[in-house]
């Protein structure tokens, strides 16, 4: 086997042929493989600690409804992080779009509408939400590229601005009274796959396609690794950045639509802790916070790991605060391990 695979000698590997055969199915890269093993370990640990509650169909279904929202946020965070920036405004955008969608549905829809009418208004609401997300994202991109404010400050400001707009618009109150059809879609399943999971799958596929099959992905990674070099290589940095922040805004809008469906209401200051979680997932998933590198598969594994951890801890009836504690520890641990292995690799190269 080893002779066919490559011409460099691999002295220690042929000792265990079974292991060798199995490693072919693991992710090839060291950091991805480590993440995969961490995911499996967390799953096994949680399954061993509370097999009755954790390993049940109910628990898996509820997990499938829970993680899509922060998974989508993490995808948005990943795109901006690969570009060497960050997007702190995703939750602000999501809240603003969910307010938009909810007010289109709750205020414009006549009370005794037919099913067809409600469907039309739901479509309109979704379009409006996506448009708002696009505009918000483009505004972020504009401030980053044309005005030249560092991304962290732009999105710190727009986070307040978008959330502030939503608060001004609603006067701080929640919008309730959505059409049943919409919440039914958001909480329903196609066959046995919950709709939010389906949406997350679509977003994941789209991100994968953009990053790996389109020239945009390559340009984005070049820009993140070294903006000067990418400019000299003929990449239109401004355009790539505008597109990145616009995509981030649209993904946030999709997350906002899922949140509205799940909570059956829209609030201006919902879920600010998602920002931390999105950064956590992105960094754990191997996205380089300095820019230039990130993989969709890493995000998916990181999201699943954290969901297993969270659901497993839920099954143990520990509080939400303990989860915060664990998440902080996991984030730091993953970063330290990655750093260590990078240093070892660097030393070996020297």
């Amino acid at each position: 086997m080893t002779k066919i695979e490559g011409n460099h000698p691999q002295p220690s590997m042929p000792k265990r042929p079974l292991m060798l055969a199995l490693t072919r199915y693991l992710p090839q890269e060291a950091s991805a493989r480590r993440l995969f093993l961490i995911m499996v370990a967390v799953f096994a640990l949680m399954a061993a600690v509370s097999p009755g509650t954790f390993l049940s169909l109910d628990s898996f279904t509820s997990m499938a409804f829970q993680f899509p929202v922060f998974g989508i946020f993490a995808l948005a965070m990943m795109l901006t992080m690969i570009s060497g920036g960050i997007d702190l405004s995703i939750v602000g955008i999501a809240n603003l779009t969910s307010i938009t969608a909810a007010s289109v549905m709750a205020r414009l829809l006549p009370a005794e509408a037919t099913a067809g009418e409600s469907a039309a208004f739901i479509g309109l609401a979704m379009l409006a939400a996506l448009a708002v997300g696009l505009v918000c994202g483009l505004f972020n991109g504009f401030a980053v590229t044309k005005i030249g404010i560092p991304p962290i400050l732009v999105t710190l400001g727009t986070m307040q601005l978008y959330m502030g707009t939503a608060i001004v618009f609603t006067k701080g109150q929640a919008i309730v009274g959505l059409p049943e059809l919409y919440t039914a879609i958001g909480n329903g399943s196609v066959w046995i796959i919950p709709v939010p999971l389906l949406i997350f799958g679509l977003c994941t596929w789209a991100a994968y396609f953009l990053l790996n099959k389109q020239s945009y992905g390559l340009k984005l990674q070049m820009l993140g690794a070294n903006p000067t070099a990418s400019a000299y290589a003929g990449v239109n940095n401004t355009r790539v950045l505008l597109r990145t922040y616009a995509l981030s805004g649209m993904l946030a809008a999709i997350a906002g639509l899922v949140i509205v469906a799940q909570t059956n209401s829209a609030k201006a200051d919902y879920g600010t802790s998602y920002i931390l979680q999105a950064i956590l997932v992105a960094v754990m998933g191997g996205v380089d916070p300095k820019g230039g590198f990130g993989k969709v598969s890493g995000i998916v594994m990181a999201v699943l790991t954290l969901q297993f951890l969270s659901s497993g801890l839920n099954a143990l009836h520990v509080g939400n605060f303990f989860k915060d504690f664990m998440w902080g520890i996991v984030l730091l641990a993953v970063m330290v391990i990655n750093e260590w292995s990078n240093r070892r690799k660097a030393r070996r190269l020297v």
Partner: protein
Amino acid sequence: MKKVVQTSEFYVAVVVLALFLVIGSQNEAFFTTANLFDLIRSGVVPGIFVMCAMLVIISGGIDVSFPAIATFSMFSATKILHSIQYDGPVIAAFLLSGLIGLCLGIINAVFISLFRLPTLIVTLGTSSMFSGFLLTFVGSSQISDLPRSLLAFSKEQIFKFTNESGITVGLPAAVLITLGVIVSVAMLLRYTMIGRGIYALGGDAVSAERIGFSPVRLQFFIYSLVGLLAGIAGMIHTTMMRNSNPVDLLGTELLIIAAVVLGGTRITGGHGTVLGSLLGLILVVTIQNSLILLGIPSYWQRFVIGALILIGTGVAAYQVKRSIMRRKSIIT
């Protein structure tokens, strides 16, 4: 004169002055001593936080964990004092809280300087860790019966006098602590080698190392100091509120960073002054406290602060961009 006009402190001062005049002309209540004392009072704890955030940003990092550290130290310190029925001088409470903060700051420093991890992400992680630990293992319900000396300190006031309507106004004695912190940070940045090192590190870490500063030691110093200051600020918050609530301060970090940045401190490091940051804080505190005096409902707060951050940083960034473009046009 021209030099003064060009500084960002000057712009912020003009904006603050304009805001004061506008609010004052709309509502007489603004320029009363009671209201001004109120503004100062609401700036006591943020005043120390602003120093923390500024030190870190000048050194080229960004810290979002100081509210978590402050909360952790004040609550566990009060809990300890409460459980041993402490009855001694108030200084011990501040020392204990500061010491706990110092230890948490060292945790930040270890991750940041020894492992060289990005500061924003480390402090996000430790912030989540600290507050999670506090609320799970130390306690989550507020402590209202503080030790007697703390209560006595909280009632101590300076500049106390009674105005014409018979209400006694004064500043809490804790103002002096904040003033002391501000003066010492200013001295540190201005007159000491460590202060120069902090600016050098933020300007260019590699150059700083080559001219003989140790980034590891400097970062250790900065994050430990920030922990210490945050711990003291937390205890001040407890004395001012007269109870210790483990969720009070969380979530204020972004507003404090906004104040620092509005005051002309560059997020990329190497630039920033104590005066500018204080002006930025005055701007934010005035907006938070006084929009209502202008007849603007308080739900506009976030919107106005967001817009201010964008305009403030946008003007600065645009000027930098233009000057770079001008320099380029000379070369070509």
